[in-house]
């Protein structure tokens, strides 16, 4: 079985990059605003659904992706304004419940509009790269590249732009940020917009390889929370590394132990990580460094 290892590792990287892509937006919103944005999974679902609809109406896939992602940004900002802003001081628990309620509402709206039947956007980039040791779809490579690009994008925004400066300031010291003359409301909106953009983009891309249906975001967002904990809340690099670690881990458990134990393996690792390091693998203090 060991001769399959290269292929399995490639499988793991491909799976991991889809996880990382979803975790990225979640960790940003969580790190800056301390909101466990459970409906990130539904933003992902909406990105996929919007793209599907646009492509079904004949739009070119590559045109549809940015349009769908931007549409998701609007939904994301609405989520924040409707569901979170009002209860921002209400503590973690209220935020979590509000998040789950919005998650349910979005799923149901999607069911009412598009039905529950799974569908997939046709892959715009079929074809497979085959080597002696492994094979990988071109589209999977594209997603891998997109994951790295998104990470770079967020990194550049946070560390090379004025907006990013303000976001980081807000996450480190809200009071001082206000004293700099920064309008926290706009920074908040911007943060949510970026988070939603990446979530929608992830869905838009992944909807061309995975089935799209109203509850498709549930599993990925659970995994993303695991990644968040492994990688450290608000730690962008941790989200990427955590995503890949989780992806490879799942594949290896499935391949070398049992495909029945895939999920147990994942969540058992989460439990063990938290037992050994109650604040996550890379610690809690790494917020947006």
């Amino acid at each position, binding site marked *: 079985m060991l001769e399959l290892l290269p292929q399995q590792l490639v499988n793991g990287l491909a799976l991991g990059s889809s996880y990382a892509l979803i975790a990225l937006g979640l960790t940003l919103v969580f790190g800056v605003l301390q909101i466990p944005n459970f409906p990130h999974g539904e933003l992902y679902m909406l990105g996929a659904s919007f793209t599907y609809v646009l492509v079904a109406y004949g739009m070119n896939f590559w045109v549809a992706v940015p349009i769908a992602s931007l549409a998701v940004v609007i939904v994301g900002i609405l989520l924040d304004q409707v569901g979170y802003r009002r209860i921002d001081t209400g503590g973690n628990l209220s935020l979590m419940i509000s998040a789950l309620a919005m998650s349910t509402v979005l799923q149901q709206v999607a069911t009412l509009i598009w039905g529950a039947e799974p569908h997939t956007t046709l892959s715009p980039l079929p074809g497979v790269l085959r080597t002696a040791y492994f094979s990988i779809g071109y589209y999977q490579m594209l997603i891998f590249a997109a994951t790295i690009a998104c990470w770079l994008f967020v990194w550049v925004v946070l560390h090379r732009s004025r907006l990013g400066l303000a976001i980081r300031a807000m996450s480190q010291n809200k009071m*001082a940020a206000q*004293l700099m003359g920064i309008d926290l409301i706009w920074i908040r909106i911007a943060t949510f917009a970026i988070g939603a953009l990446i979530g929608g983009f992830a869905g838009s891309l992944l909807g061309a390889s995975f089935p799209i249906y109203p509850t498709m975001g549930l599993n990925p967002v659970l995994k993303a929370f695991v990644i968040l904990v492994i990688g450290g809340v608000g730690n962008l690099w941790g989200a990427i590394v955590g995503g890949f670690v989780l992806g490879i881990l799942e594949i290896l458990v499935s391949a070398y132990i049992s495909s029945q134990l895939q999920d147990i393996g994942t969540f058992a690792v989460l439990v063990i990580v938290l037992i050994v390091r109650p604040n996550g693998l890379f610690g809690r203090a790494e917020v947006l460094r």
Partner: protein
Amino acid sequence: MLSIENLAAGYDRLEVLHDISIKVEEAGSVVVLGPNGAGKSTLCRAISGLLPCRHGKIVFDGKDMTGASPADRVRAGIVQVPEGRQVFPDMTVLENLRLGSWIHGEPKGPDLQKAFDLFPRLAERRNQNAGLMSGGEQQLLALARAMMARPSLLLLDEPTQGLSPVAIEQVATALISIRAQGVSILLVEQNLSLAEAVGERAYVLETGRCALEGPAAELLSSDAVAASYLGH
């Protein structure tokens, strides 16, 4: 320039400030003294807009600022150096300064140069994380950061807190040179020597009210202040 009339403010059910009236003249410098618990920090927070006024009026440059947001006040020229410095610990010195000039966009060369001239130490450490600096250095950074906003009124909340005499001297020197540039200063302090060095007029707060008021030199040398502090 700044005129505070009959201000009242506080937290929840606790009213800390009652009926405070303070004036700062154009290019003037005023110190507000008082022992801990007198309401000094609350006054600062009310002026910079972090805390709503329950009563009274804050007028700045002829405009009523009573209900304005903190950001609006910064834009109008009221810039606060908060108590306990509050630098952004995980950001570099340079990034802290860039945030200081937020309302003017990216910092211009001359502004930065001015800050570094004032505090050469900061220039040396421009790429160091602020959280790793000593208390005195952090205070200088907080001061420099506030100056990046090109304030017309600089509001300082106990800048000497926890600082060594050497560091206090540095702060004093900086404040004097800032004043010389025509910036009005409202210094809230416990430390009399800094107040003596900087202040023209002084107010003494006691349990949320103005107990004394007068020219700084006169007031500070009087026994009344010491009494209010040491309970003679």
